[in-house]
């Protein structure tokens, strides 16, 4: 057996793991909470208790397991790391291959609602010419890719693994889309595999002021609103990022030992913007695959990577959703010299593939129509 083997994979979580989870959820030691502070101190006791109650009494992991197992799944070893992926071929023979990269604290679950419309537009009210063959890998250290086992899995190394993955699957020409961490990895894939990647599509461009005051000259009032959102996020909501970028292991002991700890850690980002089942699918997947530590490490690895500051030149599309961090065009243009599509939407948020799958699907179709 060579290391380039791609092996079929099915999820089958042992019942004992689910029993252990249920047992832990049944004897949680709850913290107290200060009265009247809402979400200002973090995830509220009300929100956490409601989610745990759902998790314990009505949530069914096997539903997600069955749903995922309906899709062809594989594992393969790339650069020493196990990589798990969904590979969903379109019925349309001329479909464009497209690799979708999820973020943190999400997983492949992010994209379940867009698999049908993207692979089979004909049966989803679309044009069959817009079809994609989808490759949806779990990031190294996430979900069924399992923990990373050595340092260095930053955005560049992940992008190189994705290029190798697409090559193994026989795709010599493909598109790439990403959200959150995926929006960081995907432009690097375009840079690295520039002869294969026909277009890069992201839902955030993490391009910020460089410190040069001249950059501010062209900013609009709306841009300043985006910067204010960013500043508030940095000051009040980004501690998870600072911790995971510097000392991810310290909290990992708690997250691997306490399902409510993992739930709260993830829910800080999800808040009440997505349905409970979406939160619990993602959180349970982290818990069962024991990937809290390794998924947090991607922040450390990326913060300690040697940056590649040259702008990218791959044709790039950006979809900006209302409740998300809204990317700032002037900074995006500085770092990406070939942005050919930029659309802003008045609904949806950071979890667009679930919150506004119709908008995301339409934006992906529209962008890739330009570069197919």
């Amino acid at each position, binding site marked *: 057996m060579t290391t380039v083997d791609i092996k079929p994979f099915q999820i089958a979580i042992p019942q004992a793991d689910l029993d252990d989870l249920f047992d832990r959820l049944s004897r949680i030691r709850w913290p107290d909470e200060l009265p009247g502070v809402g979400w200002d101190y973090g995830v*509220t006791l009300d929100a956490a208790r409601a989610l745990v109650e759902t998790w314990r009494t009505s949530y069914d992991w096997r539903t997600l397991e069955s749903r995922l197992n309906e899709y062809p799944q594989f594992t393969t070893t790339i650069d020493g790391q196990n990589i798990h992926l969904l590979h969903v071929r379109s019925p349309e023979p001329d479909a464009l291959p497209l690799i979708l990269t999820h973020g943190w604290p999400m997983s492949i679950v992010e994209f379940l609602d867009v698999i049908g419309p993207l692979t089979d537009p004909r049966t989803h009210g679309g044009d069959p010419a817009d079809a994609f063959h989808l490759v949806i890998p779990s990031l190294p250290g996430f979900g069924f890719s399992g923990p990373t086992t050595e340092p260095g899995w930053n955005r560049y190394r992940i992008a190189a693994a994705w290029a190798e993955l697409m090559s193994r699957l026989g795709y010599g020409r493909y598109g790439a889309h990403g959200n959150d961490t995926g929006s960081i990895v995907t432009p690097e894939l375009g840079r690295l595999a520039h002869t294969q990647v026909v277009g890069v599509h992201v839902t955030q461009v993490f391009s910020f002021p460089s410190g040069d005051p001249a950059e501010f000259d062209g900013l609009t009032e709306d841009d300043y609103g985006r910067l204010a959102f960013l500043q508030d996020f940095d000051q009040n909501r980004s501690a998870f990022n600072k911790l995971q970028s510097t*000392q991810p292991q310290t909290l990992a002991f708690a997250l691997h030992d306490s399902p409510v700890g993992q739930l709260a850690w993830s829910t800080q980002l999800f808040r009440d913007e997505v349905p409970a089942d979406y939160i619990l699918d993602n959180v349970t997947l982290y818990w069962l695959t024991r990937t809290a530590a390794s998924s947090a490490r991607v922040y450390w690895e990326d913060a300690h990577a040697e940056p590649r500051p040259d702008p990218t030149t791959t044709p790039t599309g950006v979809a900006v959703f209302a409740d998300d961090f809204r990317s700032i065009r002037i900074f995006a243009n500085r770092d990406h010299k070939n942005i050919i599509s930029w659309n802003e939407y008045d609904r949806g948020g950071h979890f667009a593939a679930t919150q506004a799958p119709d908008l995301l699907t339409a934006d992906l179709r529209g962008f890739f129509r330009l570069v197919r």
Partner: protein
Amino acid sequence: MPQFVTVIDGQDIHFLHVRSPEPDALALILTHGWPSSPVEFLKVIGPLTDPRAHGGDPADAFHVVVPSLPGYGFSTPMQPGWGNLFRVAQAWSELMSRLGYDRYGAQGTDAGSGVAGMLAMVATDRVVGVHLTGTVATMPLGPALEVDGMSEADRARAERFNEYQADGLGYLHLQATRPQTLAYSLADSPVGQLAWIVEKFHEWTDPAAARPEDAVDRDQLLTNVSISWFRGAGPSSAHATYEGLQVWRAMAAQESGWGGEGEAEHAGPPTGVAVFAADTTIRSVMDPSGAIAHWSEFDTGGHFPAMEVPDLLAGDIRAFFRSLRQSANSAASPREIA
């Protein structure tokens, strides 16, 4: 060890109160920091209260009061607003009054150094001196230190501080902004609480110690962790950090000072500072005007000197207060200022 709980302004305050056998002992209130409890001081209580039995001079004896900060140890649960260290200092003043001490010293470490400094402002005519340990070079959440122009020794500490600021502040950002998100982990997982605390005993203790348990007594460390676990002090001390930083931000917005440091700039009781090997405190930064007369630097120990090098700490506390004992109710000792 005699322990008590009293309610001050609605908050349960737990404290150890150990009287010296020496009738003329000076009262001393010792304040711990994060992540700790009065357990931190267990190894210095004997030498401080009873120097005669610990190879010291009975004239150096103290009656010690060791309270648990609100939200820490047995001063739990924490009522809203008690992360404000100024309010804690006011409570300490009240506590010492209730105990009948109208003249006393204050020692504090980490967040406790902030409390001790503020106590000197709150009770200027009763606090004879303030002894600080566990300080850092400057405000952790402020700008990095400019190292150009520093002496080699200062520069090494400044670079260590800048490293701490860049790579060691995740816990503080989290506790200062979203402590409740962390609370679920610390309340539900003993190993989670252990790791959250022990990391600091790795990073902040004597660099010569390879492991936390090489720097401090393992049972003493586990006692601290256990109390935190049993009392839910992980979550509540994180809440206290949040409130403390809210107050600091409000003060910073008014260009006021940070914590207890820089107190020497104010008129008030004299300040003594002890800096240990792992500390980042720099004299030229903390005390540019040279107002701090007692400044000790040690080449061992770290952020938890009472656990790491209790003899050095006890010795420094004795030395600092030796000249302040006799000065009847005057706020500052001329000898110390000179």
